[in-house]
């Protein structure tokens, strides 16, 4: 486990237990994500990767223990506090949720729109779309996009607010290897810009490839606990 640096971490889990029923899915989990760090979260299906990510962006609150988001205990956060904290977090969901009635460009600008900030300039938006290779799809509606395009669009939306941390849940789950590498390159680039990264994935090849490019720690969920993964990863 990375050593905790009180007050400096972006996200802190302290002895967290969480379950959807009587049986806990996660028990006694502690996790500390320092600014600029790169972590992979792995484990078998149903182990609790998505749940742990949801605890990270205060979509869930722990049954026991504490989760602190930018130093604030998520259980003590008001709904407005949660909204404000989420503006500092970019989330790439497994199922890439979009507003299907709005064109891609407006979907990407959504975090700015809801926060009351002026939308991005056409140049900035074009730059972002070019960065994720979607400049030709700016006016397309989300249902018309392919799985890979949706993954890249989700990443673009996650970073438009220049968040301090990016949480990605199986970001390469629905794309081929070539697209996975392309997405990985984008994420590594963001980490080099100082963003904290936490990626939940079961794709070990992706993890091995990433470790060749960036200093990443790999955490594994098994038996409801969080462990540092072995040297083979």
């Amino acid at each position, binding site marked *: 486990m990375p050593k905790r640096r009180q007050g400096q971490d972006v996200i802190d889990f302290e002895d967290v237990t969480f379950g959807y029923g009587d049986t806990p899915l996660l028990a006694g989990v502690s996790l500390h994500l320092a600014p600029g760090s790169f972590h992979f979260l792995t484990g078998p299906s149903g182990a609790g990767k998505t749940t742990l990510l949801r605890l990270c962006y205060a979509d869930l*609150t722990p049954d026991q223990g504490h989760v602190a988001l930018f130093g604030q205990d998520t259980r003590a956060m008001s709904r407005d506090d949660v*909204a*404000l904290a989420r*503006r500092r977090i970019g989330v790439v969901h497994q199922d890439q949720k*979009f*507003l299907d009635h*709005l064109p891609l460009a407006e979907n990407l600008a959504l975090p700015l*729109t809801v926060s009351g900030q002026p939308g991005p300039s056409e140049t900035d938006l074009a730059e972002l779309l070019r960065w994720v290779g979607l400049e030709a799809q700016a006016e397309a509606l989300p249902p018309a996009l392919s799985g890979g395009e949706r993954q890249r669009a989700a990443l673009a939306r996650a970073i438009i*607010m220049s968040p301090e941390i990016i949480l990605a849940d199986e970001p390469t789950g629905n794309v081929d290897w070539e697209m996975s590498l392309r997405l990985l390159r984008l994420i590594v680039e963001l980490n080099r810009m100082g963003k904290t990264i936490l990626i939940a994935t079961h794709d070990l090849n992706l993890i091995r490839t990433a470790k060749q490019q960036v200093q990443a720690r790999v955490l594994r969920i098994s038996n409801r606990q969080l462990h540092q993964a072995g040297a083979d990863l």
Partner: protein
Amino acid sequence: MSRLRALLLLIAGDKQADRVVPPTGFTARLTVFAAAAMAFLVVFALAFSMATGRLAERWGSSLAQSSTIRVSAPEGQLDTQVIAVMDILRTTPGIADARVITDDEQRALLEPWFGPDLPLDTLPLPRLIAVTETPEGYDSAGLRARLAGEAPGAVLDDHTRWRVPLVRAAGRMRTLGLVAMGLIAATTAAMITLAASAALAANAEVIRVLRLVGARDAYIVRAFVRRFTLRALAGAAAGTALAMLAIALLPRAETAGGFLTGLGFVGLGWLWPLAIPPLAGLVAFLATRRAAFVTLKETR
């Protein structure tokens, strides 16, 4: 204070916020139709309430200060007794005016039942004397006693027997009209709440996306509330306009007579229905806002 701020932000509008909620089909039409229908009914309830109010006022004030004396006597004594009654009335404190109803007026009163060519002189009809009181009124028991002594064929009718229950009935009808308006407003609120809840449920995924990208509840609520408030406002404006037109086209009271033809607005009373659309908008604003906050509590 927060509601006032919410209302001001709502009026100011936010084009982007309006776009994040997809256009909805049946709930939009349902809200407009419900608001229009309810506004139409409220205008009629208001007209009914105001008409009964006028009626109650008329019965309560003008009739309260009038009485009738009926003089029945054998042929040859009738005129003598009428003169005696008039002499008594002239010397009775509290009487402002008294006059004998003319044959033409009596004929006009009886015309609806007996036709226009009624031969009054062949009928043993009593003579009627219309009495108008001063605001202080007169002593009806004392007057009755004097009439009994000096004009035994005269009977005083001070309208008390039928005026009081009629005024009470008119007052109750006015109350019923107000209750009807309250019920219609509550029904409107319920229907808009249902429509808003349906729209919120249909857009649960949209709400979830908005929350995940950092939207505050107030932002999401505003997007829904503005839409429903404007729909209610537009529907109520249309319903009010139609109802006012329908009332304006009703037969006039002077032409046809009777209570129902007096249904409507008089003078500045026509301004009252204009308050209905903004009130409907306010009801929609409060109902949708409440429904939205209740729904949002279910989403983290």
